[in-house]
């Protein structure tokens, strides 16, 4: 080995990247060459200095929080882009059929809303804007999201409407969390999504923010398709369950003195069949095992105390609670509708999500962007939480006498439920597809 070769090897030796034979050869050379031996010392010392200096650095204490706030904004960006896209398509394709008076109005309002969603800024009428923005506040996301959608590969963003602009109006209402002076970190745009907005009711005042576009029911878009999965003339199909198989619904089939677990694929016209013998459906007990209490302030809320029926449902991230309220006990027949409240668990925000409600169902999609619920007539609705858009799934032309056991599919795009169209036919299993 010559000196040139040895020098090249010094750092590799220090880095433990030499083979055994190379190491032996180098050692032999260092024994006889004092010049290279001294270079080795030098290399080793440099290595040591670097080794000492390059220790990990403790990040700012709030870094996780900041990153997760950015994550929430990102998720909302993706979701709202997807919803905007689908609604937009919906409105355009359904335009010709929107001739009836209220339907036309609904379309107009919906378009207006879309405009708000797409181009909202302070110049837009305050009413709908509030409506669009507030529910999203509920999720702790900030609207002034950096415009990164161009280079977002995932989440169906590629085909979003061209001029999606996030309003920058929420900037002032995002409370600046105290800086960490000892860390000297830069304050992220949204550090604490849970803090209340200035103009939002505190739990003390119990003020409920109205969503103008839902007060008259005008945002109801009949755009969901309901298809029967199981309709049997003689036997009752009920208690649907998803057992982790994305495309299979399991349910109980009862009639002719027997009660069995059956299964059916999630597609129209699929043939139901008996499930394998060992298939066990989750029992009622299991479904409630994760039951979680509700905050005291919520049960003390005037609306909640007065309602004839109340159902709560925690959002998957456990930050929000949806409340399906029946009509007030003392309400007259004219105002006998229930409503949906969306609240922050910490009481910092209470938003009226829909002017319909009062049924026995209320289920969040597992991504927390939608709530499916029924009203007092067992009409099924889906509320897009962040956009404040309400979709009516079933109505008088497509009605069920009873609807229950709502289940969101894992992709958040379908709802499986048990329904009975009228008292003359047994209950069946149905599927509603979101636009």
């Amino acid at each position: 080995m010559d000196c040139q070769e040895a020098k090249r090897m010094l750092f590799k030796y220090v880095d433990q990247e030499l083979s055994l034979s190379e190491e032996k050869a180098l050692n032999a050379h260092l024994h006889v060459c004092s010049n290279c031996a001294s270079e080795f010392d030098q290399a080793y010392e440099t290595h040591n200095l670097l080794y000492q200096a390059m220790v990990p650095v403790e990040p700012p204490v709030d870094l996780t929080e900041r990153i997760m706030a950015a994550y929430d904004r990102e998720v909302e960006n993706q979701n709202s882009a997807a919803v905007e896209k689908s609604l937009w398509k919906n409105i355009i394709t359904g335009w010709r059929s929107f001739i009836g008076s209220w339907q036309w109005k609904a379309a107009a309002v919906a378009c207006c809303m879309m405009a708000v969603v797409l181009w909202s800024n302070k110049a837009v009428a305050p009413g709908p804007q509030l409506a669009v923005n507030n529910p999203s506040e509920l999720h702790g996301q900030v609207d002034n999201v950096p415009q990164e959608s161009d280079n977002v590969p995932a989440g169906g963003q590629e085909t979003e409407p061209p001029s999606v602009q996030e309003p920058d109006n929420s900037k002032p209402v995002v409370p600046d969390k105290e800086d960490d002076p000892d860390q000297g970190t830069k304050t992220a745009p949204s550090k604490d999504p849970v803090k209340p907005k200035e103009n939002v009711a505190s739990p003390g005042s119990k003020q409920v923010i109205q969503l103008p576009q839902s007060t008259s029911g005008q945002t109801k878009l009949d755009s969901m398709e309901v298809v029967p999965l199981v309709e049997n003339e003689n036997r009752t199909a009920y208690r649907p369950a998803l057992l982790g198989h994305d495309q299979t619904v399991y349910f109980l089939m009862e009639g002719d003195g027997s009660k069995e677990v059956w299964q059916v694929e999630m597609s129209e016209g699929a043939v139901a069949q008996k499930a394998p013998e060992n298939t066990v459906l989750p029992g009622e007990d299991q479904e409630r095992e994760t039951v979680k209490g509700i905050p005291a302030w919520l049960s003390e809320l005037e609306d909640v105390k007065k309602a004839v029926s109340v159902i709560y449902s925690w959002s998957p991230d456990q930050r929000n609670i949806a409340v399906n309220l029946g009509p007030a006990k003392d309400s007259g027949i004219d105002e006998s509708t229930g409503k949906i409240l969306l609240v922050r668990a910490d009481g910092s925000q209470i938003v009226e999500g829909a002017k319909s409600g009062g049924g026995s169902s209320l289920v969040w999609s597992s991504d927390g962007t939608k709530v499916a619920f029924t009203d007092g007539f067992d009409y099924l609705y889906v509320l897009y939480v962040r956009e404040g858009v309400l979709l009516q799934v079933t109505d008088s032309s497509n009605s069920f006498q009873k609807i229950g056991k709502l289940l969101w599919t894992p992709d958040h795009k379908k709802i499986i439920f048990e329904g009975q169209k009228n008292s003359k036919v047994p209950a069946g299993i149905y599927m509603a597809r979101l636009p």
Partner: protein
Amino acid sequence: MIVLYYEWKKDVVPLDRLHDEGLVALCLEGKREAFEELVKRYQRQIFSLAFRMTRNYEDAGDLTQEVFMHLFRVLNKFDGKRKFFPWMYRIATNVCYNALKKKPKDSYPLDNVIDFTPRVPDRNSQPEDYSETREIQQVVHTAIADLPENYRVPIILKYLEDMSYKEIAEVMDLPITTIETRLYRGRIMLEERLEKLRERGPKDGLSRSQKNAF
């Protein structure tokens, strides 16, 4: 009657016990907590990397956030059959590297390096060596900072993460021989710049006994 639904009931294994690849799968299902767990698991490493690359504590925080957001966006491209960490680290390095290229060098005040160099002075030293260790670290950091990026990045990966040449080559997507050369040249440059420090002798943590231990 109050009925409560809570649909988050599939978990059997606590998230912090799940391996990275399992967390990625959950992230892809939209599970926020899984992503949070990944953030908690690796933010220190990514932050350290960003800090060593940018030499600015604030920028390092922003950059760490950017790295995780980028990760989130490309998570669906992760090949579940491979290890997550090298993939993630490669993305992190690229994001940091690109950020460096965008930003003019002058905008990184070196003062920050001095202010926020680790609270734990060194892996071996005594408390009385603290201030001196800090001073040494300062000089070393400045010397590293002055290296051209080509040489700086592999050295950071080598010493911060204790990566092998092969691992660095994977992260930087370069042949091992290139990494070897860059590490060699980079350290030769550093040697010249750190000569004064080395001349101070054993107190700087350069004792022969340590060397022998190695």
